[in-house]
């Protein structure tokens, strides 16, 4: 115990020295989203600039801080100033910022996104406070509190920020009291279903048997969701501490982290974090003298969507096909290798250190009755300010989409939550509170946190087809309703998007969807029809337009749209002729061009050129005419 306290004290001192020292600190958001946007190039430019000017600075690669739409983000903290965040940084911009700020004392307010200091600091004229930005202000950071602030590969940074205090508290309380506390906090599974975490733990704890397992589910197969990945990349230790707490509570001595093998950065960080825990005596036998033994295995999974289902996940860890089995027995009674097993989502586990450290009543201040706490979402799609967000439960969808996200680019059409298992909600649900029951009543689900905003350029039928295509491919094939039903739904939806459907197809689709929902074996099949059912309910007019008028309002469904040139606008620049792969466009220079409809493959190349090329006049129109096809 003492040795950890010493390490914590040392870590705190080092943290203080780092933050209050004379050397500037440069933070670079180098999680997956940052890297995709070019964070590593920025990092190289920063190193080069520092070297060239013989400047000394600490470079801290951090995780995702939230506003991914501004990636790559670079923050600079120099003595005398609070930390200042710069967005959309390119190597050239990074150089300019560093030269100006570090050499000439000018923080370039016009480039800054926000600062992390106090309000009204005269040195920061023209820079808003980061957490007062419209995107950040309605958010509450509990799970993500360290993301973007600490070096995820440095356990000392975590320790200096109250890391592993929750575990120490858990040890002082004892397992029963930990379950009690988490139950009191009202924590529910953040994987989407919302089962009370404490109840699951109690079943497992009371199940007979010496050997029990804890599994952390980082399968995250939902396309368009990256919360779990970002959390592990930004703060792996909070999840690992959560695992220790959960394992201690249920009496498990072995834990598995089941992670998608494509998450290279997250896996590397977990492995590193595990080594650090071993070195600090936080893994192994008799951890910190508490008599609690815990060992951890990082298991790479082959990333099938169905493996998010508990029994399928267990099968996959055991080296078999990821096929669900019927329940009961529930995994909490008979799970991995036939032993009692608790499977928790990353975010559930990541919340635990905070609950233990600050107490249940502290946690209950966030959220509303029955839905306490916060939830992370990946807010993406047709949205102005997309990124990783964390909000208290009970918040309205409108606040998330319009206050945090800034609304959609074009006219808002709806929002899709819960990925392929969730539903599409239309505009009238904007005042729906984000709560497990309310979302389910509307036909969608809370889900693990994917939130995709749709605007008038999105076709709900096409989106339903997209999801069904996905679930049909991912269906394990064990039960007939899911295997055959999803396939038939795809066929009908394809007919509708091609304008070949008749009115009866719609009722057929409805019956099919309800049957699959009721008769499927596992969660994948039971929720797979949700995208269809919700779009049928809330966007029925668009389905009817596809069927009766062969009209796609969003001009997405290929067979129902036509590319044409507006003769008023076309200036005859011939740019589209060059990119057209089938030579479907004809026209002499400075004369109005024409598109040969028989040759056109509707690839969108001419449309892009006409919109974005400096010589072009935005004359190409993609439209769906009523009754055309």
């Amino acid at each position, binding site marked *: 115990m003492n040795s950890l306290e010493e390490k914590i004290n040392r870590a705190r001192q080092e943290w203080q020295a780092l933050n209050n020292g004379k050397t500037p600190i440069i933070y670079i958001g180098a999680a*997956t*989203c940052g*890297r*995709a*946007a070019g964070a590593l190039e920025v990092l190289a430019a920063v190193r080069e600039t520092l070297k060239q000017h013989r400047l000394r600075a600490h470079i801290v690669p951090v995780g995702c801080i939230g506003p*991914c*739409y501004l*990636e790559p983000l670079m923050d600079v903290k120099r003595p005398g100033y609070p930390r200042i965040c710069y967005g959309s940084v390119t190597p050239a911009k990074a150089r300019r910022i560093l030269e100006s700020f570090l050499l000439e004392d000018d923080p370039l307010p016009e480039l800054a996104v926000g600062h992390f200091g106090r309000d009204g600091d005269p040195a920061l004229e023209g820079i808003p406070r980061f957490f007062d930005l419209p995107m950040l202000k309605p958010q509450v950071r509990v799970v993500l509190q360290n993301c973007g602030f600490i070096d995820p590969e440095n356990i000392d940074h975590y320790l200096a920020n109250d890391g592993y205090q929750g575990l120490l508290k858990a040890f002082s309380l004892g397992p029963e009291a930990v379950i009690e506390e988490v139950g009191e906090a009202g924590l529910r599974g953040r994987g989407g279903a919302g089962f009370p975490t404490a109840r699951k733990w109690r079943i497992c704890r009371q199940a007979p048997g010496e050997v029990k397992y804890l599994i952390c589910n980082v399968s995250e*197969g*939902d*396309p*368009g*969701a*990256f919360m779990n*990945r*970002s959390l592990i990349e930004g703060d792996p230790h909070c999840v690992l501490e959560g695992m220790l707490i959960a394992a201690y509570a249920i009496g498990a001595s072995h834990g598995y982290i089941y992670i998608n*093998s*494509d*998450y290279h950065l997250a896996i590397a960080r977990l492995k590193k974090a595990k080594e650090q825990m071993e070195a600090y005596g936080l893994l192994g036998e008799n951890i910190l003298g508490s008599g609690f033994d815990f060992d951890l295995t990082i*298991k*790479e*999974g*082959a*990333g*099938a*969507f169905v493996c998010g289902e508990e029994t399928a996940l267990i099968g*996959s*860890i*055991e*080296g*078999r*096909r*990821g*096929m669900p089995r019927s329940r009961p027995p529930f995994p909490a009674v008979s799970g991995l290798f036939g032993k009692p097993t608790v499977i928790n989502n990353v975010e559930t586990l990541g919340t635990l250190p905070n609950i233990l450290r600050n107490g249940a009543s502290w946690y209950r201040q966030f959220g509303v009755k029955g839905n306490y706490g916060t939830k992370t979402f*990946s807010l*993406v*799609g*047709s949205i102005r300010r*997309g*990124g990783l967000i964390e909000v208290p439960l009970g918040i309205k969808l409108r606040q998330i989409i319009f206050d945090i996200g800034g609304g959609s680019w074009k006219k808002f059409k709806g929002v*899709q939550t819960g*990925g392929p298992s969730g539903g599409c909600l239309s505009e009238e649900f904007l005042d729906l509170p984000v709560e497990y029951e309310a979302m389910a009543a509307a036909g969608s689900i809370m889900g693990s946190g*994917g939130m*995709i905003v*749709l605007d008038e350029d*999105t076709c709900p039928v096409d*989106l339903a087809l*997209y*999801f069904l295509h996905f679930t049909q*491919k991912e269906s*394990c094939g064990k039960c007939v309703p899911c295997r055959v039903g999803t396939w038939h739904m795809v066929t009908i939806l394809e007919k509708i998007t091609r304008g070949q459907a008749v009115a009866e197809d719609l009722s057929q689709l409805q019956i099919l969807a309800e049957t699959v929902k009721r008769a499927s074996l596992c969660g994948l099949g039971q929720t797979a029809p949700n995208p269809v059912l919700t779009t049928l309910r809330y966007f029925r007019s668009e389905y009817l337009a596809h069927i009766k008028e062969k009209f796609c309002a969003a001009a997405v469904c290929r067979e129902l749209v036509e590319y044409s040139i507006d003769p008023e606008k076309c200036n005859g620049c011939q740019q589209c002729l060059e*990119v057209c*792969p089938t030579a479907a466009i004809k026209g002499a220079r400075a004369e109005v061009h024409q598109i040969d409809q028989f040759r056109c*493959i509707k*690839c*969108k*190349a001419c449309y*892009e*050129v006409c919109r*974005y090329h400096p010589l072009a006049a935005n004359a190409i129109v993609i439209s769906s005419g009523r009754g055309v096809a």
Partner: protein
Amino acid sequence: MKSHEYDKIFSKFTGVEGDLIPLLIQIQERDGYISPEAIRRVARFLKISENQIYGVATFYPKFRFEEPGKKTIKVCMGTACHVRGGKFLAEAVGWHFGISIGQKTPDNRLDFQRATCLGCCTLGPVVQIDEKIHPRMMVTQLMQMLREHE
């Protein structure tokens, strides 16, 4: 892959059935695919039948059983990318090379895959060429890049 390289991978595992999927992942990361030779060796190492291994491996879309092309292009098919027009990018690669997702060009130079989600949804639609992720792609931009890569 040579014999001693298999042994090197096998040495990291204890040889229980649960090692099967991580083992196959490592082999695929090394070779790019899972060869019949690899299946034979894994079967001997884990003492399970080759059929069982094929049964498991073919279940997961990640595993491939044919040698991949030299350059890999992955078009993200996540929901956020789909909403922003990722479908057009996949189609563009398709008609440019005359191949569909999961195939490679006959000269073995280019491998065309779909990605379920690359985790940078705010930057969509994205395309990954080898290890590099290209954010906010457009059809014309992608065509130009593909021509440069040829």
